[in-house]
């Protein structure tokens, strides 16, 4: 009886030793203090820096150059004779540069009205998680357009400044989940010269853009602007574009249908003549190719 009791005591002791030994094999990593949770910027709410026409809440990484070709065909409503619009084309070429994580600039030129444009986009606050998290990205974009067509009436007193228009907008956007992002962008456009004296030089619009990721590399996008003031709604319509973003390696392809021809803010906000009701919509694409022009100093060694 005593022997059994002793054996049990010994076994209990050995069990205690064994558990101490095996505990040594457990998480060694816990012994090394974990770094405090850091602030992390939320990225890739949209795959490109433009939703379709409008500026998106995304920026280019510093040192990156983005070469973009935007293309809009003719209206589908023109039917077979114009091969459903494919026989016509309007194009904008652009170069965007990422200066900082929250600062970028870009220049472009459209064939529509031969307009040259430039813009700067800055985000004082970006959506972040972790320490001091913030729920949305707030960005400001401002740009200028310059109409380079020859004067329609060279004998009239024409001013160079009449060729210019300006826009400024606030972009407030949030990446709600890995799949879904939404942004709103109240915008103001000022045109130095408008077509008729009854028209306003200032126009105000509210933009709504979003994307829904369908797969790892493909997303559904929509870009709608509601014209609040300053645009004659008898002549023009609210611009609406719906499309698909496809990402492959270093390119982003954006394929879409839109009722606007213009590809800069002044053009697509104040001069969208097409109407979705009458299928006056056009097929178009944006093609973006990124180049890293300023590489980081350190690189992986051989």
């Amino acid at each position, binding site marked *: 009886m005593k022997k059994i009791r*002793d054996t049990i*005591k*010994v076994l209990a*002791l*050995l069990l*205690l*030793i064994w558990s*101490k*030994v095996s505990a*040594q*094999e457990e*998480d*060694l*990593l816990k*012994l*090394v203090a974990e*770094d405090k949770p850091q602030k*992390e910027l939320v*990225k*890739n709410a949209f795959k490109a820096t433009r939703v379709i026409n409008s500026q998106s809440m995304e920026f*280019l*990484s*510093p*040192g*990156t150059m983005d070469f973009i070709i935007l293309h809009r065909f003719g209206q589908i409503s023109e039917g077979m004779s114009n091969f459903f619009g494919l026989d016509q084309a309007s194009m904008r070429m652009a170069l965007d540069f*990422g200066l900082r994580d929250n600062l970028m600039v870009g220049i472009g030129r459209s064939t529509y009205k031969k307009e040259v444009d430039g813009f700067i986009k800055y985000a004082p606050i970006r959506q972040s998680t972790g320490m001091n998290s913030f729920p949305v990205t707030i960005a400001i974009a401002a740009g200028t357009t310059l109409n380079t067509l020859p004067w329609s009436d060279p004998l009239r007193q024409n001013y160079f400044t009449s060729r210019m228009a300006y826009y400024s907008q606030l972009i407030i956007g949030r990446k709600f989940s*890995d799949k879904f992002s939404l942004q709103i962008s109240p915008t103001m456009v000022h045109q130095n010269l408008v077509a008729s004296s009854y028209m306003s030089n200032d126009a105000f619009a509210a933009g709504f853009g979003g994307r829904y990721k369908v797969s*790892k*590399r493909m997303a559904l996008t929509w870009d709608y602007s509601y014209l609040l003031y300053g645009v004659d709604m008898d002549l023009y319509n609210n611009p609406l574009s719906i499309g698909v973003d496809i*990402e*492959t*390696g*270093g390119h982003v392809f954006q394929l879409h249908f839109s009722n606007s021809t213009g590809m800069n803010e002044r053009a697509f906000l104040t001069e969208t003549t097409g109407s979705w009701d009458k299928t006056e919509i056009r097929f178009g694409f944006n093609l973006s190719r*990124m180049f*890293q022009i300023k*590489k*980081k100093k*350190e*690189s*992986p*060694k051989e």
Partner: protein
Amino acid sequence: MLTTIKKDKHMKKIILLAIVLFLGASTNAQDKYFTKNGTITFDATTSTSPEKVAAINKSVTCVLDSKTGNTQFSVLMKGFEFEQALMREHFHENYLESDKFPKALFKGQIINSSQLNYSKNGSYDVTVKGQLTMHGQTKDVEANGKLSVNDGKISISSKFAVLLNDYGIEVPRLVSDKVAKSASIKVDCILQVLGN
């Protein structure tokens, strides 16, 4: 219980043995070495790729228990530095899904650890066997490397390959001429004693 133990010679011997085993089995902090600045590089460049598909992580956490040969690594995926910003975006967003799987972990053992003398300067060929958890998948990994003891610091280095498919990392056909099916991993860490 103690009063009965005093009288029992057998019991005394057993308890003495137990205490010796207990002390012998415990390891203290002096036997553990660590670093928070270890280096790991990966390279998945194909021969036909115009650009290098590679990155370096210089903030790897590694802990080594010299008594048992237990080795553990913790790698924060977002700590990988790339030359190309877009490559880094794709790495996190499309390939490794770093938001879902923020860390890669390795837990293993140096097989011939008992043959190594950690208190004397020297260099040894070692084999490490363990499990690598990356992108939510865990696989057995065996790698050869070198362990050197230099004035109380331990340097470990190793080079081995991982098959991306093993960890559920998909390489779309469109970029299969740039991104290789397997990545070559290089580990370089200098560990120092984990003081109390």
